């Protein structure tokens, strides 16, 4: 393969994952949190594809496609929830949505 080999891709994937995690932790709007989650998933996808190329097996790519499908489903549900919250005039701030408590 020409170009950088596996570790470089893995580093990118790891950094994407970390950036996504940071985003989930410091943002308050559920929408942005969802976007950050997407970044994390994409980081994982990149790692999968890189390994698939490295090993020479298609399984990684299949896995990545499945992840994409699941991510799409999750976005559907997440956005549906957000829209439902907005319809009920709830403020979209996860710090204030604390009724699920002990």
């Amino acid at each position, binding site marked *: 393969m020409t170009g950088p080999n596996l570790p470089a891709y893995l580093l*990118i994937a790891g950094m994407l994952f*970390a950036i996504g995690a*940071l985003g989930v*932790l410091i943002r308050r709007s559920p929408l942005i949190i969802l976007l950050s989650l997407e*970044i994390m998933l*994409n980081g994982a996808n*990149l790692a999968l594809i890189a390994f698939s190329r490295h090993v020479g097996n298609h399984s990684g790519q299949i896995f990545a*496609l499945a992840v994409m*499908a699941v991510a799409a489903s999750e976005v559907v549900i997440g956005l549906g929830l957000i829209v439902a919250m907005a319809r009920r005039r709830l403020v979209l701030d996860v710090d204030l949505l604390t*009724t699920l408590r002990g």
Partner: protein
Amino acid sequence: MSAEDVLVWIVWVVAAFACLGSGIAVVSFSNPFYSALSLIGNLGSLAVLFLLLSAEFVAAAQVLIYAGSVMVMFLFVIAYLGGRVDTPWAGGPSWQAVAAVTAAAALLAEIVLAIGLKAGGRLADQAAIPDNFGSPAQIGRIFLDEHLLAFEITSVVLLVAAVGGVILGTRPEDEDVSGVQP
């Protein structure tokens, strides 16, 4: 290093920086619109990286599905909700920001350590791949051949998500306002 190599390296560096930069942008913008647009950029650069890794079908799927439909959905919702401003690093207990950064950094460090320490030697050599590696024909064959179960289950997941989405979308008849007020 041949010219092909140099070209590949340049493309890789640009794509990588774009990827990371847009990722940081997603997390940093206050305006959700800009965040969503940055994510589209992120997805695009990722597609380029996938192409470099001989995953043509996956790259195409990424652009079509992710950047194409998922992000459009996002943008629809953002438009519907009217882009509330949400500054990052704000709100929450004082230790939240520090803890968040620490956690993210720890995760990154561990990933690097784990892979670096454990798999160091084996990361160098690469397998030789045929020319049609990652082509749609191959992916399709394998979906219906080795990974049929994954294929079917994925379709079920999508069905469930669709049903869930429809249910979540039904407009309720006189619901009272519950939860915390702005």
